[in-house]
């Protein structure tokens, strides 16, 4: 198989994984102490992973596919929130990766906080000030899930590197560094 083909197939797999994560998240019971409707944002793991491996365009594509899935299964409001939050957080994670040397936890938390703030902003436009009651809950949730997504990326990168050729993920610029 050609490298490009493998890569496209791999991105497809990631998109499917993002959808599975957001579906599984919906099956979880409501989190204690947290507002109902608050989501863990587990599928951020996938978009962050994509932003850090296959690049920004595929990561955004995955966020869009996830948004369409939310739109089809959970309605217009959920779709808009997922799309808006997903694209913005993917962009922020990619910018932190690209422009800074910040640790992976910062990338994860930055993405998760952006995701939650984008959703809060959407909620604010729909209901006005009432939505800000949820801000502290959403921020705490963002830090927790951000650390989780950062940790997953840290853990999953080394094993993925070993099989990267099979997925069409080559090292940028052909450099071969080893940790």
């Amino acid at each position, binding site marked *: 198989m050609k490298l*490009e083909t493998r*890569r496209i197939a791999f991105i497809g797999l990631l998109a499917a994984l993002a959808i599975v994560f957001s579906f599984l998240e919906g099956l979880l019971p*409501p989190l204690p102490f947290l*507002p*109902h*409707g608050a989501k863990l944002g587990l599928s951020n793991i996938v978009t962050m992973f994509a*932003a*850090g*491996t*296959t*690049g*920004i*365009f*595929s990561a955004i594509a995955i966020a869009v596919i996830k948004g369409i899935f939310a739109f089809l299964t*959970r*309605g*217009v*409001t*959920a779709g808009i*929130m997922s799309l808006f939050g997903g694209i913005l957080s993917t962009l922020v994670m*990619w910018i932190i*990766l*690209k422009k800074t040397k*910040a*640790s*992976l*936890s*910062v*990338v994860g*938390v930055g993405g998760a906080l952006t995701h939650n703030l984008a959703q809060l902003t*959407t909620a604010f436009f*729909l*209901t*006005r000030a*009432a*939505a800000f*009651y*949820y*801000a*502290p*809950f959403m*921020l*705490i949730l963002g*830090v927790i899930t951000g*650390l989780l997504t*950062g*940790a997953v*990326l*840290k853990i999953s*990168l080394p094993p993925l*590197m070993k099989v*990267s050729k099979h997925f069409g*993920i*080559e*090292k*940028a*610029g052909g*450099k071969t*560094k080893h*940790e």
Partner: protein
Amino acid sequence: MSKFTYELARERKFITKKNIFIFAAIVLVCAAIWLFYALAPNGGTAEIKLDGELYETVDFASLEAAKEIFIDPNLAGGVELTITADSTGISVTRATCPDKTCVETGKIVRAGEVIICLPAKLSITVSGASDADAITY
């Protein structure tokens, strides 16, 4: 197709001491606000808003029997909503939106507490004590 950004993530640490400090600060500040919410006294009235506009104010603390409020779906993005209020608080008891977040939020009674139904652009906010408090408490 975009260039691979694999290298960007590979050689980074997971976390630094400075990061831990910043994250802890965010969590502590939010937890303090949270505690402030949790210790708020019970309110007596609730404002029901649709699309940011006041729809009805309910003085629930002075209600003797449960009161049901039906929201016109034409005003609420096509969502049928039933709000139930009694002297112990106010809750959304029925909603035809897909996510049912507002119903799952349950009953609210503390001042400042909020129920939100995004598809219907509905919010219910509990505010200060009602006139009935002087008698009740």
